[in-house]
């Protein structure tokens, strides 16, 4: 801000601050109604019958099985999507080729597809009358209603998250350092390990954070392919639904609170990365 604008805003008439106060009040009221109130109601409902009841409902074996499956799914989907994100970012930002725009559009596609459709497509392929059903039956294999289907659906839903963090950043950084290393005789693996990877490490972490949050919380896609078998193909978000539909509200909201805590933790880490390592992340409006 220059001296002039500072003087101007200082010289603003007093009655403007009333309007300012009203706007701030209205914005915060809206934020409370739409975002903060739902967050607090989770806690209130979870503790309705006391902390003991909430803890007891969380220590059910079904909850643990669901938590294990959720973590397992995330642990498979995110690393695969990270490798994909790095490969996609490398070929899209370091080379020029025909079809690049199409490739980038395809990478973003899962973001605009309904989660239910992201589940549906796997049923169309592997379901009881899916395209590959005859082969699967002949081989005695089942994919639908197993953890494999849950992993497939989760990969599809979270596929763009890492690529979308890495591509703009690597575009910004350019390939000067990698070209320099190449002229100095560095091997491809050395270029990748000692130049590219360190340059994108914070963006990679940021993308992993977002992808993990989405993978652990995914509901629609997973719901379609899971079959809702307790203890076997039930993830934490699906377990919330089962408990809720059985009118076990304390159990449902206690499990929901567990997921909400994970979400809040994600937000804290996310804003930490945004403040501390802003220069190492792609500069743009983040979604």
């Amino acid at each position: 801000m220059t001296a002039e604008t500072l003087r101007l805003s200082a010289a603003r008439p007093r009655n403007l601050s009333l309007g300012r106060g009203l706007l701030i009040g209205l914005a915060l009221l809206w934020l409370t109604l739409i975002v903060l109130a739902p967050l607090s109601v989770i806690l209130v409902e979870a503790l309705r019958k006391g902390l003991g009841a909430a803890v007891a409902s969380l220590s059910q074996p079904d909850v643990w099985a669901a938590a294990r499956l959720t973590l397992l799914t995330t642990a498979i989907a995110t690393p695969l999507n990270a490798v994909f994100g790095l490969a996609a970012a490398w070929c899209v930002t370091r080379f020029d080729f025909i079809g690049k725009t199409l490739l980038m559009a395809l990478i973003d596609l899962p973001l605009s597809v309904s989660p239910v459709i992201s589940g549906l497509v796997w049923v169309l392929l592997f379901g009881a009358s899916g395209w590959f059903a005859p082969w699967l039956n002949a081989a005695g294999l089942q994919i639908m209603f197993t953890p494999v289907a849950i992993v497939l659906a989760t990969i599809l839903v979270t596929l763009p998250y890492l690529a979308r963090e890495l591509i703009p950043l690597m575009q910004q950084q350019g390939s000067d350092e990698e070209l320099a290393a190449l002229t100095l005789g560095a091997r491809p693996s050395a270029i990748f390990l000692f130049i590219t990877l360190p340059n994108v490490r914070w963006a990679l972490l940021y993308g992993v954070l977002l992808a993990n949050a989405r993978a652990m919380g995914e509901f629609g896609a997973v719901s379609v392919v899971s079959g809702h078998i307790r203890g076997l193909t039930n993830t934490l978000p699906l377990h919330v639904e089962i408990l809720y539909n059985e009118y076990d509200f304390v159990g449902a909201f206690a499990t929901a609170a567990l997921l909400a805590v994970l979400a809040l933790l994600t937000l804290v880490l996310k804003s930490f990365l945004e403040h501390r390592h802003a220069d190492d992340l792609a500069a743009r409006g983040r979604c």
Partner: protein
Amino acid sequence: MTRQAGRRAWRTPSPLPGFSLSLGFTVAYLSLFVLIPLTALAIRPWENGFDSVIAAVASPRAQAALRLSFIAAAVAAAVNAVMGGLLAWVLTRYDFPGKRLADAVIDLPFALPTAVAGIALTALYAQNGPIGGLLAPLGIKIAYTPVGVVVAMIFVGLPFVVRSIQPVLQDLDQEVEAAAETLGASPFQRATRIILPAVLPALLSGVGLAFARGVGEYGSVIFIAGNMPLRSEIAPLLIVTQLEQFDYAGAATIGMAMLILSFLILLGFNGLQGLIARRGA
């Protein structure tokens, strides 16, 4: 020689290694997880013939579900355009206690699992809930009506709008506004003549994202919607219902219709954005 020329035709040469490997892996991965699955979505609706596709889309239940998903998403996006715009404005221009917390909380709908948001919104806006209870005496019902669907879509769409506008507002040169003020422009004139044209492209892209998210939204909506066929049943839920009846072609048809409709609407949105950007330049 000819091979060289052919190669140059589709890629610009670069001394950097790993082109074939990275492109090959990217294309293979995308084919496996995006292309083949979505091809199934595009082909399977037609397996019982053209007429059955029309019948599946034109059935009253499908029409009602599609209408609800798209209209509710449009209303939610419009509400988010106004209130998200206000939030972005307040967060970039004013200082007040708790501002950083408010800013961080905007992203909660991204991070909170949709099913969690769904049961929380339902508990809040049901007739025996803290907010729904206040509105019930006034005759306003939110949960288990289409209004509830809109509320859930507002929740999931909010961050898209705020996060799209915020960087533009941040970079906007405040001296222009100050100049307009010294020339006697009212706050309303400054908002509509200077700020709105500058943020409009970003606002439209944010609203488009929020709309697309709302159309496909499932987890946060199904708890609060009540899910009455023809009245409060969203299109994604109809897909799930048809899958449960093993009507794969019917489910794929609704899914395909949703994708084509959203695609067309977003295309229109992009055209509008381009038009505005060109007029501005």
